[in-house]
């Protein structure tokens, strides 16, 4: 094991994950998720977030359909979608996505179709952005493990 390489990768990982918290992509709940992962369940976090991203794609697609025709918007369906999205983003610590959902719900409550469409676009952007970021993070994790190192525990408190 090349300890220099491992140390470098570990530092890279640490800096990267801290930046994700600092920039507001992730909140404390993500660190709670990481605590639940151990040697017995090394893919737990990536599996949960993967389910989350699948959820996002599905819900956004459904809401998009409901918002499609201006004369016939099913706001109830949109509201249900936003509620679910807010819930799951909260469960995984996807802070930006969750925050957009808050605005999204407000637009829904007043039946503002234009507002809803904007929020829909934003939530789509945010989840895809987070997906890319986390993919990079998990890649770093893999590199550390392959180099024979262990993944650092990052305590953001």
């Amino acid at each position, binding site marked *: 094991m090349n300890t220099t390489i491992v140390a470098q990768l570990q530092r890279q990982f640490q800096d990267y994950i801290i930046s994700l918290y600092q920039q507001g992509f992730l909140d404390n709940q993500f*660190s709670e998720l990481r605590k*639940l992962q151990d040697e017995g369940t090394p893919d737990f976090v990536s599996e949960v977030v993967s389910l989350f991203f699948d*959820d996002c794609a599905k819900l956004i697609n459904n809401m998009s359909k409901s918002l499609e025709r201006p004369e016939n918007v099913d706001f109830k369906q949109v509201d249900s979608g936003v509620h679910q999205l*807010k819930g*799951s983003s*909260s469960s995984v610590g996807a802070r930006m996505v969750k925050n957009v959902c808050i605005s999204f719900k407000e637009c829904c409550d007043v039946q503002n179709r234009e507002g809803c469409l904007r929020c829909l676009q934003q939530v789509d952007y945010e989840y895809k952005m987070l997906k890319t970021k986390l993919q990079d993070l998990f890649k770093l994790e893999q590199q550390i493990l392959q180099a024979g190192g262990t993944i650092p525990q990052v305590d953001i408190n």
Partner: protein
Amino acid sequence: MGMAAESQFHVLAVDDSLCDRKLIERLLQKSSCQVTTVESGSKALEFLGLRQGLQSNDPNELSTSPHIHQEVEVNLIITDYCMPGMTGYDLLKKVKESSAFKNIPVVIMSSENVPARISRCLEEGAEEFFLKPVRLADLNKLKPHMMKTKLKNQKLEEIEEASKDETALVEPEIKDSTKIEILPLQQDLQLVQQEEQTLCTNNKRKSMEEGISTDRALTRFDGITTTV
């Protein structure tokens, strides 16, 4: 406690979100519980009906479920509140109204802090109300509740076993040497019941008070992250 190694607490977790199901499953496993997850209230009832043969006082209930495994029991139900079809509240009511399952403690989870909702659930018999996302610290509160059902079930099982024998009828206080295990269990059961009563009242009061003042945790401490 003197319990066998394989007899873990078995929790039935109900949530329509796949993401959340995965999370609660892991949380419970991390708390050393055996977990079964289902996606709806009706699936939960189905699972209970097929598994929980022992606690039923009604012989007719048993006849509708051909595959009863008497060894599998549920020590706690944890359910999401907002679900399509049967809500967590509906499930809670059904469980508490059933003679077979009313002794199973039920915990409600919700992403929304609505005091009226919380008190309604607690009044209907929910042991705890957790705000989502649920954390490990929350689950530590569940042990006393699960302990109670487990002890009760063990006691019931032993009485059942004994009554199958050709020998004399068994009462819990019997001094027969083969039944001596029942005595300590009963004492423990009383202790746990008392403890649970106090916990219950304290939590209910705490939830009611904090539900209106804070917009965060009801049954956990604000700002403190438990490191595992």
